[in-house]
């Protein structure tokens, strides 16, 4: 029976899926300890966004890496805010529920295909063209996609 290969992409997805549960486990450390707040902060600020943007069938194209990096934090914080607001509005907030909901969200999102924002997949065509030029420090023309832009 063939085992799934632990490619870097699979490892990344696994790390993302596990990150929430690690953050939840970290809350067992005493309050204010760096061993507690650092994993929690990193998870809440980055994981939900990365779980939505990172898993692309062919990996992120060069043009989309900056985008995934830049959007990860605001998207993550949005998801966390909506979760926290809903829990407070329904008077059901507790730390375990809050981190548990986020961890579950991240685990599921990490296993599913990422949000197909155009730059993550198709927009990469023109970025590929731009890469070799920009490596020399001179922005040049980008390849135009067939039929694109008209």
């Amino acid at each position, binding site marked *: 029976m063939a085992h799934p290969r632990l490619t870097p992409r699979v490892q990344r997805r696994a790390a993302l899926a596990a990150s929430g549960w690690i*953050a939840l486990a970290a*809350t067992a450390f*005493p*309050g*204010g*300890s760096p061993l*507690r*707040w650092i994993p*929690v*902060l990193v998870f*809440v*600020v980055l994981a939900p966004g990365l779980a*939505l943007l990172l898993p692309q069938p062919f990996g992120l194209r060069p043009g989309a890496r*900056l*985008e995934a*990096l*830049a*959007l990860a*934090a*605001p*998207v993550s*914080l*949005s*998801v*966390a*805010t*909506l*979760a*926290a*607001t809903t*829990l*407070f*509005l329904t*008077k059901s*907030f507790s*730390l375990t529920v*809050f*981190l548990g909901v986020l961890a579950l969200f991240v685990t599921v999102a990490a296993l599913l295909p990422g*949000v*197909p*924002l*155009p*730059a993550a997949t*198709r*927009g990469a*065509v*023109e970025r590929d063209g731009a890469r070799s030029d*920009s*490596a*020399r*420090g*001179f*922005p040049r*023309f*980008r390849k*135009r*996609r067939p039929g*694109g*832009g*008209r």
Partner: protein
Amino acid sequence: MPSQPVAEGREAVEREAEPGPAAPRRRTGPAAALRTPDALNAALLLVAAVLWLWALPGIDFRSIEEFGLLDRFPLAFYAALAVLTCGFVLTLRRAGTAPLWPATYCAAMLVALKAPPAILYDTVRYAWASKHDAIISRLLTEGTVHPGRELSGGMSAYDQWPGFFSLDAALVRAFGVDAAASFINWAPVALGLLTVPVLILVYRTFSDDWRLVWTGVWIFQLANWVGQDYLSPQGFSYLLYLTVFAVVVRHFVLPGSAGALRDRSALDPAAASVPPPTTTRQRAVAVLFLVPVIATINASHQLTPVMLCASLFALCLTRRYRNFGLLVTAGLIMLVWNLTMGRELFLDTLGTLREKAGDLLGNSRPGFAGDPTGPGPELVGSANVLMVLAVGGLAAAAVLLRRKLARSALPLVLAAAAPLPMFAVNDYGGEMIFRVYLFGLPGAAFFAAAALVPATGAASRAAKIARRTTAVALPVTLVALLAGFLPSYYGKEGMHYAPPGETALTRRAFDRAPEGALVLAATGAFADSYYRYDHYERWFFTEQEVDENLRMLKDPAGYLAGGIPAGRPAYVILTPTQGEAVIGEGYLPEGGFDTLREALKSSPLFAVVEEGPYGLVLRYRPTTGG
């Protein structure tokens, strides 16, 4: 082929690409490695870091006088900032090949500028941050919000837009700390670090020239002096607003709309090609992706959704970004929130629109007060005006002179101009002018950078002159903007830092007052002014027109006694921070606060409860006078 040090790899690529007669002389060994641009960048960064760390303990924030922190920063602090500016300008020469260096310098500048209070202060910086701390603490105590409950001083609005505070409350619990106060002073650094990548994303959409992009980011950081970057719903929503804008300009180009902009010769040499068009399905996916972000903006802040809709509407004026679907989605989410959670304030605001609408001059006035008094606040006022003029002037020059760039980056121009009509609608408690500036800033900073970073490649005489001029103008302007940022951001620090003794006095005074008491203070701009705010009513009695304050100063005790409802227990808290604030905001003339303090202290209508270097607490005793 001679061996080449690894550190020179990028350098060599660049040298090959550089035109010019000078053939590179290849050197090997550590001495050569030290002469590389990387080594120079690292050395300058190290020098700046050493100077900054050395200066840090010398920042005398405990004895702030009229110039805020400006005369409390040691020379080494200023030297560190100057070295960072020089280093940044040098990194721009290789911005395209080594983008990590300008990124590092931008992050370093952000930390150098905004981390000192986070590291040094032993209390919450800024009265409004302390107010937000109080809101988060209340949310944690109550476990929920009460959007329908009336709270004095407009505090119920925070229950109607609880998004950001819910996130903070959740983080307080997750970190296992007592209150948001333990991380609150780091918010400007954190928000800055999260905003910069989004800003780069926006700028990269309109320019392929990394020098322009990084200079824009740098100018944005320096011009962002309006102090909305503390732990606040507006600071957070601003990051989300930029996120929506970034996704829109990158992923919402309509097919067949770019027209002449697809022709490279129609573009400025520094401009990026218009992003590829997207199909209806792709745009629908992007709208779905943005819904949580837009919902969070609406759950967190009142004004940002309006600004977002204004910007999206402005973008709809272009053929390239005519996406009514997204505009309608954003409008619907705003309407739903305003008619459900935010109903009370929304209907209230609609009621006042009739009197405020059209009052352009009134709505663009900063605050209620008169002109700030004293050399410190006056310097801050002048620095603010000069900053606006400098950034606005440079941006306007670039829009006029680099019309091709303005045409391809039209969305940035429109987004910068979209908030302007807000002046016609509302004054937002005297804050509108700062908010309009803030929302106009991303576009303004980009074009200000375009004025300072001319395109490479053009060989005309004018282009050569422009390049030579800006080689001098760029560092000079960046230093000038830095010189403008510091008084704008730190010039009123006397208002923003309160020693622990003062906050302890304030909390004691509140704890002493019975439930439902009226607590008077000259202004609400002091730490802990909203401590346990749902238990008391507050009256910040100088926050009104200056003429009325001058009338009040003739007989302060009688004036205050006249405003206290009969039978209501009332206390007055006067702290040194309030003294700074009433002068800084121009509520009272110089010496007015001392007059007020002495008059209340000596009046038979008020009894001294506590007096010391950290403030004065008085209790109202109505029967004594009669």
